[in-house]
């Protein structure tokens, strides 16, 4: 079934599906309901990192060096999990400055330099071309493999095939066409492609599913699980070196350089920069990508070793290229459906990479290479044409075709000599050259344009000499002499043993020398002179991007420009309608006023903010350096001196300091206000409590007064009252006055205790004696009620420290309470004294009506008398128990009640031993050995 038409139909169908996804993504974006505003989509789009290198090449690498395929995934994993803060800073900078590509980033950092942007673009294009060739190689070899199905014939190429008959040429063209349709349909100031991201995320899913399917098929279909494959492989001596962690001699340096390279690549490859930074919708998405992307890498690597080992054993001695195992293993088993899925997965990996990479590169070529040249040489022509947005798009389209054709060319020239992974690493090494200028620029204010230019040039030159040229030489397109004998026969200049450095693999060798040259030149040249105005300005914006001051955006511009001129200028690049909308939106944000004044001839004049806004709009379309030049063409700019710039920056930062100070003050004020409110509420609450108590006290005072007054008036108004009534009333009056006196005394007493002004006469005393004295004092009352008092008071208990009179007060209160509630005739009170571990416990039990559980706390509240079971409320002031409890607590004890309703109540209190409270008193006695405790 796998004839050519089926393969082609499947490929086109799949590309169609991608296009549908992209179209849908764009449509949703236009409707403002972005589907890519989702952290999972963001993480999946980052997986564009996994190309055919991963899909086919990892197995090839593993077949040669075992786990040697792994470091290029460890690098990104480390960077994402440990270095995400760098990525976050890049995202902030890009958003704040409307940066469109990595070339724009570097150019913008070093004073919006055209030269620098151009150099970065050239490095990127030259560096990435082998990588694109890799994709072409993978796709074309898998296509030819499929076309010879069911035979497994290794595609053998010769450079003699005419281009018109070469399948890969057409693949390159189809990819170019597809990319053009995908990425260059319109211009956007932010250079974002929502549809593309949606399609890339879809592709990431497809390639993962396809690879896992092959892995599961090989591991569990052909073999019997992981254990089985490794057992079989272990039995073959020639495979054993693949299963150890100590590869050949250069292993460790190679691992180290691969981890470094891949970690840098995942940040600086143009396509990674595009999806991870430029296309980022929301920096919060980074949170999920930080673990999801490494997880994706882990998943897509799980089956690499089993497939490699399975392939090596299955095709032993048949000359099947290990890079094709992913496809040829299912082919050998006649799994046509799986074969097609794998092919589509590989196609996914290739198209995803090619689309994003060429879009990113074409943007760079257009904004940082072609536009500056047009600006310089065809200024007049550019000024005349009213709308150049179409021209911009065409430049990008041309760039896409050119880049893919260059990729095809490299593939024709050098594609056969290298495995997939080796080609990819050449690109990684080129991209790594951006690191010093870029990372240095983000964290070091001292970096200058000259330093960046020197560093990049030096690094790039070393890369070309030690890696790119040898790759041509090894494919026979350059004389191989200079590899073995060095340039001009000078041995020290041998490209892969430069200056006699041997013992490293080609990649580590290149990394070492290129970084030495790159970093050395960057730092060295930067230190030669201090940064100029433009550089210092941009350095501040970049280095402080994560801090508050980086976002304030001091306006470093002084000059005159007319609003109309600016809008017209922006309109020429973005289209008049978009420009109109953008300017109107800006005016609304600025509140209509303040952004423009009026010049002498009545035309509105733009202020610095508007000029900056126009520049950032243009920067989105043509790059920051070109935008700078274009704006300068319509604005009469007066140059600022470095002192002035520093002054403005300084002022801005001072202003920010002031405003932070103000914010802090205002926060403090708010806090203080809240505290005041709380304090006021507490005061009011206290006031209310005091009011309640006063109200209770007056109520308690008025009640006896009412009886006293009423009886007195009755006696006064009726001199002839019966003697019996007269005596009764007088007795009641006396009783009520006693009640009044008691109430007043207790109220004052409680107030004194509560305010801490009570007098306490602490001394050591025998509690038993106190209790007996109290019982004697109350005996008259007990007799009146015909009650009986039982005591259980052991002798020789330790002394306690307390105030004798106060303790008698407590005991009398408890005893009289007990008596009060006894039934006449059958009443019984039991007083006990018990020894505890750290003190004594007194109990006063009665056989009265008891206290309901819900009332057992209430009886200790002021003026709370619990007497619902009786018709009349109990006599007493309602202060006895609250006072008693405070007295006991004053001496470190506790007073509480235990009761079952109907079975009487027991009040208990504890008091601690005297020794604890007054250790000094027992010290003299210690010597005599006669201590009581």
């Amino acid at each position, binding site marked *: 079934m796998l004839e050519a038409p089926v393969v082609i139909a499947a490929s086109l169908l799949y590309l169609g599906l991608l296009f549908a996804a992209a179209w849908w993504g764009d449509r949703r974006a236009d409707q403002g309901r972005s589907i890519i505003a989702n952290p999972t989509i963001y993480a999946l789009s980052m997986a564009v990192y996994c190309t055919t290198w991963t899909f086919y090449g990892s197995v090839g690498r593993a077949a040669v060096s075992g786990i040697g395929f792994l470091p290029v995934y460890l690098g990104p994993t480390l960077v994402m999990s440990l270095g995400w803060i760098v990525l976050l800073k890049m995202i902030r900078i890009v958003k704040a400055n409307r940066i469109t590509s990595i070339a724009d980033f570097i150019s913008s950092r070093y004073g919006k330099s055209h030269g620098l942007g151009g150099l970065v673009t050239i490095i990127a294009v030259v560096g990435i071309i082998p990588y694109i060739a890799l994709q072409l190689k993978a796709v074309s070899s898998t296509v030819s493999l499929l076309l010879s199905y069911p035979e497994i014939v290794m595609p053998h190429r010769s450079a003699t095939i005419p281009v018109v008959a070469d399948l890969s040429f057409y693949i390159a063209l189809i990819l170019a066409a597809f990319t053009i349709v995908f990425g260059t349909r319109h211009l956007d100031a932010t250079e974002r492609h929502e549809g593309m991201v949606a399609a890339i995320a879809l592709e990431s899913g497809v390639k993962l599913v396809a690879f896992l399917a092959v892995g599961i098929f090989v591991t569990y279909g052909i073999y019997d699980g992981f254990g089985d494959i490794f057992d079989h492989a272990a039995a073959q001596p020639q495979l054993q070196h693949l299963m150890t962690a100590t590869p050949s001699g250069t292993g460790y340096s190679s691992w180290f350089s691969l981890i470094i390279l891949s970690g840098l690549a995942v940040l600086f490859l143009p396509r990674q920069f595009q999806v991870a930074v430029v296309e980022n919708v929301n920096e919060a998405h980074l949170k999920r990508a930080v673990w999801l992307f490494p997880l994706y890498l882990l998943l897509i690597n799980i089956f690499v070793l089993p497939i490699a080992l399975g392939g090596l054993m299955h095709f032993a001695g048949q000359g099947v290229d290990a890079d094709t195992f992913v496809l040829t293993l299912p082919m050998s088993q006649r799994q046509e459906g799986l074969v097609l899925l794998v092919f589509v997965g590989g196609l996914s990996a290739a198209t995803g990479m090619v689309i994003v990479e060429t879009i990113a590169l074409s943007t760079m070529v257009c904004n940082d290479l072609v536009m500056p040249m047009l600006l310089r040489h065809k200024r007049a022509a550019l000024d005349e044409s009213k709308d150049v947005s179409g021209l911009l798009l065409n430049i990008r389209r041309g760039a896409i075709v050119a880049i893919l054709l260059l990729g095809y060319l490299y593939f024709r020239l050098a594609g056969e000599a290298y495995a997939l992974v080796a080609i990819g690493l050449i690109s990684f090494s080129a991209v790594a050259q951006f690191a010093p200028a870029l990372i240095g620029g983000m964290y070091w204010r001292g970096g200058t344009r000259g330093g960046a230019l020197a560093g990049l040039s030096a690094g790039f030159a070393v890369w070309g000499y030690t890696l790119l040229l040898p790759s041509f030489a090894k494919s026979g397109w350059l004389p191989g002499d200079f590899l073995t004998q060095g340039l001009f026969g000078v041995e020290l200049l041998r490209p892969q043993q430069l200056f006699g450095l041997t013992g490293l693999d080609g990649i580590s060798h290149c990394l070492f020398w290129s970084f030495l040259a790159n970093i050395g030149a960057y730092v060295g040249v930067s230190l030669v002179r201090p940064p100029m105005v433009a550089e210092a300005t941009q350095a501040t914006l970049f280095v402080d991007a994560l801090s508050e001051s980086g976002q304030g955006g001091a306006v470093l511009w002084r000059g005159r420009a007319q609003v109309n001129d600016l809008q017209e200028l922006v309109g020429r690049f973005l289209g008049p309608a978009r420009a109109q909308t953008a300017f109107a939106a800006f005016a609304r944000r600025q509140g209509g006023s303040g952004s423009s004044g009026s010049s002498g001839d009545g035309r509105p004049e733009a202020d610095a903010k508007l000029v900056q806004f126009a520049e950032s709009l243009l920067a989105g379309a043509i790059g920051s350096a070109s935008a700078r030049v274009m704006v300068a063409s319509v604005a009469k700019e007066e140059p600022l001196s470095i002192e002035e710039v520093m002054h403005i920056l300084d002022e801005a930062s001072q202003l920010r300091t002031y405003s932070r100070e103000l914010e802090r003050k205002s926060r403090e004020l708010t806090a203080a206000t809240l505290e005041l409110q709380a304090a006021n509420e507490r005061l009011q609450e206290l006031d209310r409590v005091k009011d309640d108590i006063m109200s209770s006290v007056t109520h308690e005072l*008025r009640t006896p*007064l009412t009886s006293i007054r*009423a009886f007195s008036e009755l006696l006064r108004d009726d001199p002839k009252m019966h003697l019996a009534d007269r005596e009764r009333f007088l007795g009641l009056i006396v009783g009520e006055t006693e009640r009044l006196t008691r109430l007043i005394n207790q109220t004052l007493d409680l107030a004194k205790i509560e305010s801490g002004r009570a007098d306490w006469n602490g001394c050591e005393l025998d509690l038993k004696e106190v209790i007996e004295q109290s019982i004697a004092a109350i005996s008259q009352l007990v007799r009146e009620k015909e009650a009986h008092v039982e005591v259980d008071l052991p002798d020789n208990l330790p002394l306690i420290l307390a105030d004798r009179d106060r303790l008698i007060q407590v005991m009398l209160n408890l005893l009289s309470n007990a008596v009060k509630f006894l039934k006449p005739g059958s009443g019984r009170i039991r007083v006990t004294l018990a020894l505890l571990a750290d003190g004594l416990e007194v109990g006063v039990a009665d056989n009265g009506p008891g206290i309901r559980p819900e009332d057992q706390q209430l009886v200790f509240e002021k003026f709370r008398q619990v007497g619902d079971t009786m018709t009349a409320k109990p006599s007493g002031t309602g202060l006895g128990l609250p006072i008693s409890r405070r007295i006991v607590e004053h001496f470190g004890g506790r007073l509480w009640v235990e009761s079952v309703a109907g079975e009487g109540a027991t009040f208990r209190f504890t008091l601690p031993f005297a020794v604890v409270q007054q250790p000094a008193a027992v010290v003299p006695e210690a010597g005599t050995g006669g201590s009581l405790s």
Partner: protein
Amino acid sequence: MSKKILIADDEQNIVISIEFLLRREGFEVLIAGDGEEALAKVRAEKPDLVLLDVMMPKMNGFDVCQAMRADPELSATRILMLTAKGRDTEVSKGLGLGADGYMTKPFSTKELLAEVRKLLEM
């Protein structure tokens, strides 16, 4: 026929003094020691006037007053609130609930009698 007056108060001595005062003036006197008992006796005996203490167990004077005013059969019964809490809010609360008069403890016996006669329209 003599008028019937209910004294509702939990302070025994106050009850004794008012009872003596009213009987001497020829009124028929009933007594209740808490709010529930007071309401029950009002419903059973239909007194012409209730002297109602506010702070009583089980049901306070305000609630008794409210319950009486909600009962149409008791609309003829006059209510004189007696309380030891003489604050303005208490006075207006009592009158708002439908009491006909309000006296603060301690009171003069003469004034109490005058108020009682006024409410009974004697």
